[in-house]
């Protein structure tokens, strides 16, 4: 390894192909021992939701996720890192976010993917609004204390 690799970061409305993105991190390589892929999907919350709408801050979304991804690349010896976050209206069962981390060893790949997700939740400028199947307009999803606590795990002390 000759220093941290450059992560691939995409902010897009279109769907992504998690398998193809993950596969690209190990294809043709013989130094990747571990590949961890996290896919976040839209749930219907027991049939309550017709969709989630993700508002984002264009420009900052890419800048902030790139900062988080680069931090992960300097913290763990990754051979590849891809982060894709969608915006717009997403139906239940649809993809929202992908983190794929490759490394020689599994601990680095696991921790980097876990870290990325914790910080995407608390720092990436995206906001989810619920669209309900029935009744009035849905409401904005509230941020969870549990997510802030999860992100704090990565700070020593």
């Amino acid at each position: 390894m000759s220093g941290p690799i450059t992560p691939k970061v995409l902010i897009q409305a279109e769907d992504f192909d998690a398998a193809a993105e993950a596969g690209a991190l190990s294809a043709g390589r013989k130094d990747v021992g571990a590949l961890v892929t996290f896919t976040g999907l839209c749930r219907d919350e027991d049939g309550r939701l017709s969709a989630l709408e993700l508002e984002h801050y264009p420009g900052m979304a890419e800048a902030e996720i790139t900062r988080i991804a680069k931090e992960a690349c300097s913290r763990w010896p990754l051979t590849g890192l891809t982060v894709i976050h969608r915006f717009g209206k997403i139906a239940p069962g649809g993809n929202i976010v992908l983190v794929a981390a490759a490394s020689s060893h599994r601990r680095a790949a696991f921790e980097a993917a876990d870290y990325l997700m914790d910080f995407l939740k608390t720092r990436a400028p995206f906001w989810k609004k619920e669209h309900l199947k029935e009744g009035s307009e849905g409401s904005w999803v509230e941020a969870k204390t549990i997510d802030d606590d999860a992100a704090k795990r990565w700070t020593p002390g």
Partner: protein
Amino acid sequence: MTVEIRYFAWVRERVGTEAETLDLPEGTQTVSDLLSWLKNRDERFAHAFEDMDTIRVALDQEHSEHDQLIGNAREIAIFPPMTGG
């Protein structure tokens, strides 16, 4: 000082606009100064900023604290806690 202010999610809905260009009044030094001034503009802003602790701010697309100096920031974004991921 002229800045571009952007609002997102329920802050945007409450204030009723996505973005505006504003001349900040003399003496607006910190993020907190800006938020207090905005809160006093009208009822919509008062409602949006009623619980100041939940308000997040980015200066030129970087997360900032309320006690941070605005400095030369040209783009100031105001929004609720994020719920991406």
